[in-house]
């Protein structure tokens, strides 16, 4: 009898926990703000390694790399 009461207590506790878990549900409806980006923020391309926030270095690298598409500059016109 004592064991049955023990199991009943455990079962009741588990049930209460499960019912309480429903109260912790997060809201699933997004509140949209018309005309504004709603997603996650993005970081600029120069923020992470290897540029570590050095925008000037990144711009210079990209500009130099863009010039690699110019064969007149690459081979000399």
């Amino acid at each position, binding site marked *: 009898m004592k064991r049955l009461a023990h199991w009943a207590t455990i079962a009741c506790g588990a049930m209460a926990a499960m019912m309480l878990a429903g109260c912790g549900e997060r809201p699933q409806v997004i509140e*949209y*703000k018309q005309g504004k980006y*709603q*997603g996650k923020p993005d970081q600029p*391309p120069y923020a992470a390694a290897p*540029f570590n926030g050095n925008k000037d270095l990144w711009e210079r690298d*990209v*500009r130099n*790399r863009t010039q690699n*598409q110019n064969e007149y500059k690459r081979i000399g016109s």
Partner: protein
Amino acid sequence: MARMKFLCDAERCIECNGCVTACKQENDVPWGVNRRRVVTINDGVPGERSISVACMHCSDAPCMAVCPVDCFYRSEEGVVLHDKDLCIGCGYCFYACPFGAPQFPQAGAFGVRGKMDKCTFCAGGPEKDGSEDEFRKYGRNRLSEGKLPACAEMCSTKALLGGDGDVIAEIYRQRVTMRGKGSDVWGWGTAYGRPEAPRAPGGPGGGPAPGQPAQPAPGGKT
């Protein structure tokens, strides 16, 4: 820095589809999705022209305007990107885009339209740069490595140029000056030719050219 742009030189494109392959390989794009493709006008006819098309990263992007959940944003460099976690796959952006850039992979057993996928200018998306999540959702972030989109860098004839708009415009200007023709990047005239100039009345094959008004008589009212 100016805005990142693509520019395709129709005089140089040889329809090799190297850009398409490079994009697929670099970004691990799923089967059935083409972020970039080559379009040929007058295929098989002498004088045919090809152009490589993907998202043009419009300055006033219609996809951004029509998105009901506002999942699009424009980066500081002018690259139009979107948040796949927010996209509902409605397809409005596909209808709005004049280039057919937004692509929808089939998802699930019944081929339900998945979340939109498009060219990111190899700039990833709103996840940590170079992370596994970013690669899985958006592909490789070459821009954060100081590189340019794989399609442009892989182009064998350098028909497809990508990068800072001012720089590639200058490259193109120099190219046109050197070869002395083909200043039209792309347009009606490049695709279909220009209407013939009106012939002189009385000359060989006289009379107005098709689509041209008849020449007024000398001294007549105009």
